[in-house]
């Protein structure tokens, strides 16, 4: 019920193209991982979808072109977790998550009882109950990440964009954050698009990968097709071997010493 259509999307900063002719159809409930080296255009694409940077081409949710929507309506459809969210130290977890209800609060309005119930539900689901009154400044990195995701979920948008959701986290918290997204997706049918650096995790958790290089799609499809040693060598200039686990088909990218063979 909430498919995202991207048709020839272009993003440019002062004439320098960041994303070129990006077209894709992201099915409702699908999780797409955007991968690619630094500067490939992953963040720019996410920012274009959420309307933070101007873009050409067409971006639509279920045939509703986002360009025609009011900011509030757009925010009801798409939630966005930036790479480095600004976290006010002196705001409580509850207040922060409650800000996620902004798209539903009238210009001069206040949050309703329903808004608070949604926030309570999200806080509950993300096991943040004991933190509700704590200040954001007192939380650890992993806790903060959960709080930011909670804020995005409180938006009740069917589409969730995550920009490098795990880049600041250790391996354990990375896994917890991704498991959380999986769980939420199963629970609420969220459509998720995430930019990711860890190729192995991207392959394991997402349904489909889209690899960008210099703003263009260079490969798209399941991890087994996209993550090949040769392509990674070309795109990332990295020397890796790629193993496929015979039991569950997980694609494991293993860095090796040396220069890429291209």
């Amino acid at each position, binding site marked *: *019920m909430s498919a995202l259509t991207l048709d020839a999307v272009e993003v440019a900063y002062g004439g320098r193209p960041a994303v070129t002719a990006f077209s894709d159809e992201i099915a409702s*409930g*699908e*999780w797409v991982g955007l991968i690619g080296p630094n500067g490939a255009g992953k963040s720019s694409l996410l920012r274009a979808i*959420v*309307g*933070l940077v101007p873009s050409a081409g067409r971006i639509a949710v279920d045939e509703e072109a986002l360009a025609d929507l*009011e*900011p*509030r*309506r*757009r*925010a*009801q459809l*798409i*939630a*966005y977790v*930036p790479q480095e*969210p*600004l*976290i*006010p130290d*002196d*705001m*409580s977890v*509850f*207040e922060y998550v409650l*800000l*996620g209800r*902004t*798209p539903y*609060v009238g210009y001069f*309005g*206040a949050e309703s009882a*329903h808004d*608070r*119930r*949604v*926030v*309570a*539900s*999200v*806080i*509950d*689901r993300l096991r943040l*109950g004991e933190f*509700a*009154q704590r200040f954001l400044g007192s939380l650890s990195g992993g806790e903060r990440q959960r709080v930011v995701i909670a804020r995005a*979920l409180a*938006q*009740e*948008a*069917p589409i969730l964009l995550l920009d490098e959701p795990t880049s600041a986290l250790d391996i354990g918290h990375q896994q917890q954050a991704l498991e959380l997204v999986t769980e939420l*997706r*199963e*629970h*609420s*049918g*969220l459509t998720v698009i995430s930019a990711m650096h860890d190729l192995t995790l991207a392959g394991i958790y997402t*349904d489909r990968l889209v690899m960008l290089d210099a703003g263009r799609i260079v490969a798209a499809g399941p991890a087994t097709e996209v993550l090949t040693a040769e392509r990674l060598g070309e795109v990332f200039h990295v020397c890796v071997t790629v193993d496929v686990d015979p039991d569950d088909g997980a694609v494991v990218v293993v860095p090796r010493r040396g220069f890429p063979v291209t």
Partner: protein
Amino acid sequence: MSTTASPVDTDVVGEAVTSDVMATVDEVVATERRREIRWLLIGAVFLVVATIVGASIGPAGPPAWRVPLAMLDHLPFISVDSGVSDSEWNIIWQIRMPRVVLGVLVGAMLSAAGAGYQGVFRNPLVDPYLLGAAAGAGLGATLMLTTGRDVTTDWPIDPVQLVAFAFALGTVAITYSVGASFGGRRSGATLVLAGVAVVSFATAVQTFILQRNLDVVREVFQWILGRLSGATWTDVATVTPYVAVSAMVLMLHRRHLDVFRVGDDEAATLGVSVRRTRLVIVIAATLGTAAVVSVSGLIGFVGLVVPHVVRLMAGASYRLVIPLSLLFGGGFLVLADVLGRQLMSPAETPIGVITAFIGAPFFIYLLRTRQVAG
């Protein structure tokens, strides 16, 4: 992939909420509401006490302790024998009260405007004069008190206030358009820099004019330094509409200011029209600031520090910061004015000196205790 999941809207709120968490949230909300009411009461009491103190103390007039009684006596349906004669009451009502009320309006306005500016620019060092309201008013007043004097001597009304007001608004408008042309519409930072440039320019022009009119330097400085002395009910009536509109707009944007705390980008993804909302708040804050500056001159420190003191006492949410800045800012300026009158009586100490003199140490004290605690 789960294709069986039901729509998000109906699913997020469901039996998933354990009664525990719902109870916790209800409790958080109730505690917060009680805390808000408590602080608003404290602020209101502070303001009332400051007003009574401001009206009670001064040279001439009845003994200070009789004044509150006389004030009670003048309330409807209340009759108290205060022992204050009609001529004494006249001193209180015609001389002290306008000054006290103007002090409340100016202090409240500068503090709330400062809080608003700090909020939209997410910059704790910002005060309501940032975009040039004070520099513009100062320049306008200087022009009127120097070259303009020859022209306006025969005029029935003294246009200094009006010109100062117009220059204050004009200067901020220039800052905004300069900042916007650098791309400041997207980021508040460029607007702040534009403010620095425009303020320096206006101040330079003003200094240049003063340099060539040394005979009025004293008058101009007295104007600029800020004062509540000689305030009349006319002054109060002049600023009240602007202050009322400005304060109301700021009050109505408290929630927006809280959204701004998470950054422009995230505010935008939450559906806030960042540019437009920032402009509305800046216009409101500037209108009120320009009005009070053109009547009372440049009273420093209040707009910068009162919002911070409020944050340190009652928390950083603008739900409380704006109304408490109004209440505490108004009360604080009245008390500072009382001190200014008494300190070197009968000479008056400029109120800007007093605000900095009490405000700064108190601010440092709060910062220290908070750091130890937090």
